[in-house]
């Protein structure tokens, strides 16, 4: 039997971890993900789990510990944010190339430069090419549900890739919300046991991991990794379908909110979706045909599906909660625009970078975006494509 409770996003993830009882947890604190290892440490202290809790001296070592543990044949997990994830970058690539289905709870926070502890997506977006599956959560319930699905996706034999379950720092990690928690036994049964094919501690034969890979082989290994990421799309939908059957909550690559006949749409990731849904409802009530696409899965990128979902829209804004510094738009925009290129009739697409370092994004901000999009839809005049919203500026604000 599931039960209702009130938990913060960090607590929800720690709760899921307790239910799963992973073999190894490599822990190093960083705001705002620190609570996850703290809650888990208490589970260890109280004998509620029998996980090896390895309190490492850095995030580089936490990812290295996870790599060693997962290669040895067990489930390894960690949690981090911001600079902690950046400090892991080198090892993120190693984890993916060694095809180790490690699970990382990423509590998104702005990367330092200057230091800032609040939410944006620059940390995990910076890791988007590392070969990790990335799933983002709108609220605490989704953080919990996504975490419960993570291992089954990552451990799928034709996937075997590490996975990052992301949620917005403070906004969901520290905010307490009502949440539906599943029964321990039901969770254990759903997640199942990890049974890798080959591992370092296997009795039958030893295993060598992490070779010097010369040019006659390296590219084949990279293509296999790329194929695994494509395969992950099927695994994500299969696991979501089983999750819906088991627990009754439905997930896909993205959520379409009132998109049926939408003329203007916003595409975004994470907790801002909650604000955007309120905005959509208000604008729909006022007669405006607006909708929202909340991207849940960013890696692998659901390009065809997203393009199809946007194909009937006249104008769309892709809202990036990270800069990217490409000089021509953020990372979600780049992938979305590329996905839409193959459409016969493309929506007018603009990019709005917003919410950096925890800058607030309210219903009225999103309403301005929708009004701007409706104007584009009406006039066909796009204006500037790459905008920043909500910052102080001496220039006249476009938005």
């Amino acid at each position, binding site marked *: 039997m599931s039960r209702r409770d009130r938990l913060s996003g960090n607590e929800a993830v720690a709760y899921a971890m307790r239910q799963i009882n992973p073999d190894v947890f490599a822990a190093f604190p960083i705001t705002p993900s620190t609570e996850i290892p703290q809650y888990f440490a208490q589970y260890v202290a109280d004998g509620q789990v029998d996980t090896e809790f390895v309190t490492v001296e850095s995030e*580089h070592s936490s990812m290295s*510990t996870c*790599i060693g543990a997962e290669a040895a044949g067990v489930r390894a997990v960690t949690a981090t944010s911001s600079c902690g994830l950046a400090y892991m970058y080198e090892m993120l690539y190693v984890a993916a190339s060694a095809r180790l289905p490690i699970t990382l709870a990423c509590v998104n926070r702005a990367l330092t430069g200057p230091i800032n502890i609040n939410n944006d997506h620059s940390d995990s977006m910076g890791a988007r090419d590392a070969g990790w599956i990335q799933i983002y959560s709108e609220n605490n319930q989704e953080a919990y549900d996504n975490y419960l699905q993570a291992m089954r996706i990552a451990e799928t034999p034709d996937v075997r890739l590490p996975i990052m379950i992301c949620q917005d720092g403070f906004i969901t990690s520290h905010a307490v919300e009502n949440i539906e928690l599943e029964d321990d036994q039901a969770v254990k049964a759903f997640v199942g046991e990890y049974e890798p094919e080959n591992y370092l*501690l296997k009795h039958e034969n030893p295993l060598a991991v992490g070779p010097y890979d010369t040019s006659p082989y390296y590219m084949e290994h990279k293509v296999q990794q790329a194929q695994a990421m494509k395969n992950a799309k099927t695994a994500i939908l299969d696991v979501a379908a089983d999750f819906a059957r088991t627990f009754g909550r439905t997930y896909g690559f993205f959520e379409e909110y009132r998109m049926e006949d939408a003329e203007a749409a916003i595409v975004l990731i994470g907790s801002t979706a909650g604000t955007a849904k309120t905005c959509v409802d208000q604008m729909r009530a006022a007669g405006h045909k607006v909708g929202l696409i909340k991207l849940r899965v960013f890696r692998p990128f659901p390009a065809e599906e997203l393009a199809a979902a946007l194909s009937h829209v006249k104008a769309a804004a892709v809202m990036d909660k990270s800069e990217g510094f490409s000089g021509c738009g953020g990372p979600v925009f780049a992938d979305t625009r590329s996905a839409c290129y193959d459409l016969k009739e493309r929506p007018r697409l603009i990019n709005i970078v917003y919410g950096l370092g925890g800058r607030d994004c309210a219903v009225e901000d999103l309403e301005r975006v929708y009004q701007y999009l409706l104007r584009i839809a009406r006039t066909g005049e796009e204006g500037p494509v790459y905008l920043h919203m909500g910052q102080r500026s001496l220039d006249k604000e476009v938005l």
Partner: protein
Amino acid sequence: MAYNHKIELNKPERFVGGHRLCAGCGAGIVSRAIMRALDEGDRAVICNATSCLEVSSFIYPYTAWEDSYIHSAFENAAATCGGVEAAYRAAKRRGKVKDHFKFLTIGGDGGTYDIGFQSLSGAMERGHDMVYFCYDNEAYMNTGIQRSSATPRFANATTTPCGTQSEGKKQNKKDLTEILAAHHIPYVAQTTMLGNLKDLHKKAHKAIYTEGPAFVNILSPCPRGWQYAPENLPQICRMAVETCVWPLYEVIDGRWYLSYEPKKKLPVEEFMRLQGRFKHCFKPGNEWTIEEAQAYVDENWERLLEKCH
């Protein structure tokens, strides 16, 4: 257990031929010796930092290691090994693994003294049941003989070259073994390849079979970096010990034990003259370099004798 070189050499090899290490390199000999120190029947996982040893012994799709082996990066061999060891504890507790495993980490001086120092210190402090073996060849040899904090003063390395204004490296070698002893772990030792390798074997065995973290620092000359003919490897190791440049000792549960005291301590130039990297020290006018090298060795040797029982 008396050491019998013949019996040891007749054990099945766990680090086999076909690797691509240079002739006269210490790393291959060290690796074979370490692996022989495992009791037959015990399984092992080797964790290797990026190094000459790694890129020469595990070139896809071949490996020279008969046991399970993992390389993940340069600076994190100890943390990786800690992860494997943690997994073993968890798997053992949950009845998923029955075999008896030992966990051995091997890194060069770059991966140990320098970039991997934090990871090493962390793993030792946490108390994983593992051994970290450093094969110390006193520079970044894999990238082409750049100085490390293990490079001795006056050595000619590619980032501390000799020149009109330079007599090689300016700083003395970091005393990593002493730093590891300060971690107050159960076993710390310093050794090298001498004669029938008894000292190396016994220390490796003791380290592997001491419960908890252990560290063994093994001076391991490099023919390219130190500039010597391959056949001179044993002589260089011998001279490192006879001159007290590289004393052999153990720190067991905080107590220091000297493993070998030369009957007659030889002058430091007996060690230096065998190697091209110190060639400039023997030029007329550079006598001071050898004098300072000698003074440094003497000072360290005296300090060590005071600590040893």
